[in-house]
C-alpha cells in the first residue's frame, strides 16, 4: 500500500532526525523523540536530535509512550521546534 511518509523519506533528501504528524490538531504522532522534558495537560515537551519540540494545547494526554515514539491526543494548538 502506498505510504506517503515512506515516499517522502525515500525520494527526498532529508536529514533523518524526527517525524511529527499532526492529524487535524487532535492527534500528534512523534517518531524519534529522545525523552520527555515536560508533561502537563497544556504543555508536552520532548527532546529530539538537534533540539527540542514544544507542543501546546488543551486537555492533552500522552496516549502512548515508547522508547522513541509517542502519541499525543487532545486539542493541539501549537507545535514548535527549538
Amino acid at each position, binding site marked *: 500500500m502506498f505510504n506517503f511518509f515512506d515516499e517522502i523519506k525515500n525520494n527526498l533528501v532529508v536529514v533523518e532526525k524526527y517525524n511529527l504528524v499532526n492529524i487535524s490538531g487532535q492527534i500528534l*504522532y512523534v517518531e524519534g523523540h529522545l*525523552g*520527555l*522534558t*515536560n*508533561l*502537563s*495537560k497544556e504543555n508536552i515537551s*520532548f527532546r529530539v536530535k538537534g533540539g527540542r519540540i514544544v507542543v501546546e494545547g488543551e486537555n492533552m*494526554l*500522552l*496516549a*502512548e*509512550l*515508547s*522508547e522513541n*515514539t509517542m*502519541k499525543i491526543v487532545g486539542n493541539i494548538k501549537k507545535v514548535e521546534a527549538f
Partner: protein
Amino acid sequence: MRKNLKSRTKFKIKSLNQEKKLSSLAKLVRLYNVDRIDKNLTSFEVEDENFKLTKKFLENNGIEILEVEGRGIGKYIKFLFSNWGIVLAGVLLAIVYIVQYQFVWRIEIDGTEILSSSEISSFVSEAMPSQFKRAIDTKALEVKLKDNFERISAVSVAIIGQTLVVNISEAYIPDEMGDNFQPIVSQYSGIITRIDLIQGTLNVKQGDIVREGDVLVEPYIIDTDGEKRAVKPEAKIEADIWIFGESEHSEYSRKIERTGNKAEFSEVYLFGLKIYSNVKENEFERYESEESEGDLSKNMLLPFKVKRYTYYETKEIVENSKFEEVKDKKIDEARQNALIYLQESEIIKDENFTVRSAGGVTNVTYILTVNREIGG
C-alpha cells in the same frame, strides 16, 4: 503505533522529575494514557505482561506507587474468580432458562370468528403429548384439528419461542350447500297485490288476504321428475297493509292538581343518630309528598346529614267534555299515532277512521293503507 487490545494495569505514582523517569521506563515498556494529575502525581497504564518489570523499575528508582488497578479482560476474570457465588447464580440461571425454553407454556389461537378459541385451545392442549417442544408434532396437530373441526378449511401450527401458535382459516359454507332453508313468511297482515317469484314454491296468490306469520313461499321446488328439491326461496311479494293508530276520550275525567300550599319538615342526623327534628303531623287533607336526603352543609368537619320532607296540598278536578268538542283533535291524534309506523318515503294509498263509544269513553282508530314488501 498499534491499537492494543491487551488488558492493562494502571499505576498511580508519586515522585519528582517524572518526565525523566517516565522516559527511562518507556525504554523498557510501552506506556499508555500517561496523565499528569498533579506536579508530583501521574497515572499511566502498561500491558499486564509488563506489570512485574514496571513495578521493579518503579521500586528501584525510588518512585512511590500509590495505586495499582487492574484493567481489561484480566480484571474481569479476577472478579469472576473472586465472586464465584455470582458466577454460580449466573450459571444456574442460564441452565434454568435453557431447560424451560424447551417447553411450550402458552397456546395462541388466531383467525377464529365462528369457532371458539377456548375450545380449540383445550383441544390442542389435550392433543399435545407433552409440553416438551421436541415431542410436539405440529403437522400431526394440524391434521387432528382439520379432522375434528369441520369449520376449519386451513390450519397451521407453529412453535414460536415458547408459544404454540395455531392459525386458523375458517370455511365459509354458503346457504346453498345445506338443506336448512327457511320459507318466506309474511311480516304483516294485508292483501297481496304483486308477486315476483324467483325461486321456491308459492303458497299464496295475488288478491289473497294474509296474516303476519303466514308462509308465502315454500323452500322447495318440484322438479320435472316430480321430486321435491330443497332450494333457497326468493321472491318479491308486495301487499296492501293496514297501519293503525288510536286515541281515547273520556266524557268524565278526574285529575289531581297541586294547590300551591306546601309544608316542609326536616330531621338532622349525626353518625346515624337523630339530633334534631321539626316533623309535625301533616294537616293537608289531600297531599303528595317528596323526600330528600343529603349533607346539611358543605365543608363541615362533622358529617351532618339532613332529611327533608315536603308535603304538597292537592285538589281533585273533575272535567266534563263532549267528544264532539274535541273530535277533530282526537282524530288527528289517532292519525299521528298511525303515521309513526310509516316507513320512509312510503305512499299512503288510503286512509280512514272509525269511532266507537261505550260507557262515556270514545275510541278513535285511524287506519292507513300502504303498499309494502311483506316477504321476510
